[in-house]
């Protein structure tokens, strides 16, 4: 039976330190100037009524991934665990998936000339029962990762306690990455 992975990003706990981004780069040897993961900071409102919002950008591991359905060579594929991966040998880098991805999570790796994106560190960590690099490094525990089928898992508990927002949910992509939206400060 497949897993039901979920990654929850709590915008209230994030401090924008970018440790996740650095950890990702080191773990996956991501070349300079391209990113599997970014955390954007937006300052809202006027002094002294300010608010700071954090926004995480990465692959959200759609249940219905548009990148997989457009890929002409099946290089983008979904594993039985529901994770979206890229078979580098089959990728011709036509960029159809980069265009089709509503989350702009994909890019061309300039060293390998193939399409790349976040894969939840599947090969190097998750398949060995370790947490993805970004989750394990996060100093404020803003990120949590786990299998939703396990009732005791952090993601299961958080999903029941908190209001989750799934990015661009109206597109029907059913992301496995969810956000707990910011509750503090000015919102607009």
């Amino acid at each position, binding site marked *: 039976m497949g897993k039901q992975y979920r990654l929850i990003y709590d915008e209230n706990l994030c401090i924008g330190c970018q440790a996740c981004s650095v950890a990702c780069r080191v773990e996956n040897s991501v070349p300079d100037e391209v990113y599997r993961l970014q955390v954007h*900071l937006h300052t809202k409102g006027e002094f002294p009524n300010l608010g700071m919002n954090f926004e995480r950008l990465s692959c959200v591991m759609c249940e219905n991934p548009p990148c997989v359905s457009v890929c002409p060579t099946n290089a983008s594929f979904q594993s039985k665990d529901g994770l979206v991966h890229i078979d580098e040998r089959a990728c011709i880098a036509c960029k159809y998936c980069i265009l*089709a991805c509503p989350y702009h999570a994909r890019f061309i790796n300039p060293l390998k000339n193939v399409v790349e994106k976040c894969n939840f560190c599947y090969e190097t960590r998750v398949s060995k029962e370790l947490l993805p690099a970004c989750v394990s490094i996060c100093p404020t525990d803003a990120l949590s990762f786990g299998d939703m089928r396990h009732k005791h898992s952090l993601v299961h508990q958080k999903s029941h306690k908190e209001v989750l927002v799934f990015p661009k949910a109206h597109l029907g992509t059913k992301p496995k990455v969810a956000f707990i939206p910011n509750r503090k400060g000015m919102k607009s």
Partner: protein
Amino acid sequence: MNQIWGSMEQYSTLVWHWPIAVYLFLAGLSAGAAMTSLIVKWIEGNGKPPWDGLIKAGALLAPLTICLGLVLLIFDLTRPLMFWKLLIHYNFGSVMTLGVLGLFIYTPLSFIYAAIKFKPWLFETGPFAGLLRPFKGLLDKVGDNPAWLERTLFLFAVIIGIYTGFLLSAMYSYPLFNTPLLPILFLASGLSSGIAASILFGLLFFKSEVNEKNAKYLLELDLRVVPMELLLLFALFVGMYFQGGDKAIIAVQALTTGIWAFVFWGGVIGVGIATPLLIAITALKHHAYRVGYILLNSLVVLIGVVFLRLYILYAGQTFVG
């Protein structure tokens, strides 16, 4: 600005550039030229050699432009030498795969069809006559009027013309791409560019073989397709507007902001639609046969279709929700 999280360049929504727009144009033109050639050939009395110059022009344009387009497409890949993987891996849910399969059938058929139209040149007068002579028997077996081949070619020309639209409309996070009218618009403008290119090519290179009656027929046909494009564009944008939300905002933005709005009004509407209509009601009034104006007319239609493909591709990627 240098943000703490690094470069934003990767998050640009502009992923496919002008070679794709030119391919979309050439594929539409090829399909349109094949249809044009067949339409003229199927007119009573045109079904036997010597072929009309317009039949020959369309027959020649179809394989040439599709091959040119495909070369362009291959070199736009980040790994051009890996293109063959596209030919052996199939994802039947991907419009790109379906396009490849369509091209597998369309391209050879367009070559055979062209070969039938240029038989004397290929096997007798041309520079490759000696080399190609062994294949003459094969082509003779197909005959001058292979109904099955012509009908299949016409069907696949329609498929190729329409697939270029579905290629873009399959991406549902781009409101300007993701409309059901786009494939029909691309088919119509592909046909119009195919007609224009056949007239232009025919009058420039096979002038002595062009029957005035056929040229007039094609001009009239183009004059029916061009207003149809206008109607499709109108329905596309009004339809998006009435869908509300993001789509309404993007429909307005795409028509009013920046360089792409300028390309739309000046290039697509001004050059591609208004100019041919203006020529039709002035210089070519009452179906006058003035070659200079006919060539000009074909040229502006072609330029208009190039602008349309560029506009849809770039504006579609620029204005996203």
